[in-house]
């Protein structure tokens, strides 16, 4: 068992990010798509935290806090919108949301 290098973190982050992208692109369920977005954000967070730790520069970790904060806010707003749309459409399938088209 060798030591864990920065490369491993990069692989992990890439894998997580790809899973997130795939989830957003493939799934129709809006809640799962949100989760995909969260995965992508957290992949970036892992990358930031890892590089920060390996370089001994804590400013990357500060970024992570900001991203988490913004993500929380985004989810709060996003879920609120989602609830409203659900009340109108009785559906959480993304293909029913094309009624927003102008």
């Amino acid at each position: 068992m060798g030591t864990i290098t920065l490369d491993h973190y990069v692989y992990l982050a890439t894998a997580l990010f790809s899973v997130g992208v795939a989830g957003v692109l493939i799934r129709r369920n809006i809640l799962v798509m949100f989760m995909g977005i969260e995965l992508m954000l957290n992949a970036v967070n892992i990358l930031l935290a890892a590089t920060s730790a390996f370089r001994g520069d804590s400013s990357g970790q500060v970024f992570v806090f900001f991203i988490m904060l913004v993500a929380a806010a985004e989810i709060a707003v996003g879920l609120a919108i989602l609830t409203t749309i659900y009340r109108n459409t009785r559906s959480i399938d993304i293909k029913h949301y094309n009624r927003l088209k102008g």
Partner: protein
Amino acid sequence: MNDFAILCLIPALPLLGFVVTGLFGKHLGRMLSGWLATLATAASFGLALALFIAHPDGFGAGAGFDGKLFDWLPVAGLNLSFGLQLDPLSLMMTLVVTGVGALIHLYSIGYMHDDSGASRFFSFMNLFIFSMLVLVLADNYAVMFVGWEGVGLCSYLLIGFWFTRDEYNAAAVKAFVMNRIGDLGFLLGLFAMFTTFGSLSFGTVFGKAAGMASGTPVLTLITILLFVGAMGKSAQIPLYTWLPDAMAGPTPVSALIHAATMVTAGVYMVIRSHVLYDLAPASLALIAIVGLATAVWAALIALTQRDIKKVLAYSTVSQLGYMFLALGVGAYSTGYFHVFTHAFFKALLFLGAGSVIHALAGEQDIRKMGALRKKLPITYLTFLVATLAISGIPPFAGFFSKDSILAAAFERSPILWAIGVFAAFLTAFYMGRLLVLVFHSSSRVKEGVHPHESPWTMTVPLVLLAVGSIGSGFLGMPAVFGLPNFISDFLAPAAGAYESHLGSGTEWLLMAISVVVALAGFGLAAWRYGPKAVVPGEDVDMKGPARWSLVKFRVDELYEAVIVKPLFALSSWVSGTANDRGVDGLVRGGAGLFSGIGRLVRRLQTGNTVFYLFAMTLGVIVIAAIAALG
């Protein structure tokens, strides 16, 4: 009051009359409007007469006085002021315009008494008098142009006075458009004048022009352009065809505007500009030729016309030609003398014709008149005086003025004189024909029409004008009579002196020939249309030259084919093809282009969120790839 204040009042009174009758005509009623309008014009005449009496010597050696009312257009280098000028020429013209104008207003009260639009009629008439006075009293060309356009407008309004009839409106439009052609020449002349002299004021322009050499091209250009304006206003070849059509207006309008005053505005303008014309011999020659050609041409057409007013209209065109002939040979005061006498006898002829038309309940065809002398004695006698005057029978006014013109023409060239005498013969013939067919011969009046003499408001002007038709000639008798030539002497400071160099023997001979020719014309007419009444037949009876005269040499048709039709074709091409396909096509093409692009791009906006996300991801990958590879 000083002279200038009186001068300002002269045009102000008719303007006031126009405003009052125009705004409150409906409340005043027809009669009161008519009397107010007449009073305004008569008061102007009184003021002009007062000025005339105050200056019997024609302002001594000076050429009158002028004054500025207000700055009109102070723009950059152009500083036009609105000023009035009184000199012998404008004073004489003012007397004619207001004097004859007042009589015609009085006549109109009787003539228009049962027309519901009489108030409107009188307000237009007063507006006309005002415009004409502005034209006459102007102290620069720009103000003169205001009056020039004003009288054109009034002419248009009054020709189309009975606007419910389409052909009357067409006649009004025709008059207006033909005048515009002339006015364009006038305007161009003014532009050329301003470029050359830097001013439009009479004093400055004439002062600067006097220092230039005779025959300077720019002077010839200016004078010819001004004459184009006169051609339109005074109905000379080739712009004369509007005047006969203008007879669509009420008869007093024909008398005032289309015989006595407005149509002589061109003559007045040329006399006013005589300093310029004296320096442009080529323009003078052109004027003489055009005038003489018009005199003969219109007289030929008048020979066979059947409408009493049309005969008189062509006669007016012909007489205007005479006036221009006089101007063309440099006899300006003689030309004015004919304007002066013509105003009386031609107004009288028209008013007499109006009285006949009135008596026959609107009939204008001379084939349906005849033997009216017993029914309309006053009209007959006054019409006879006017006929003798226009035909040049001594001692009536037309004899002296026409003979002076012919003498002046003879001095220039016997050919001009011979053609002029021929026109005089034609004049005597068609006037004799008119007189015989209307008042003598046998009655051809329609059943049920009972001719009656007109009311006093109409006959009084007839009598007064008849007095003028007899008396006005004595004011300008040729020198051989040994009496002072008042007109020539009075106008000399403003219109230049004209000395006849003919021997007294020659002059007597010329006069004798004129009289013989006029009598011959009368005799021929009396023989042709006399007791054995050969009434002008139906159109098919006329053959050869007579038929050409009857159809007016088809000049209207020629203009229609050569100018009007192509212009209409061009307009319809511009409004149809060029506009619809060209301009609209460009606009529609532009719109079509963008809506096409829109149709194409709209396909991307599916509304499918998954597709958007996919496209976004793809975009990010492409950008990242470019960044990684680049």
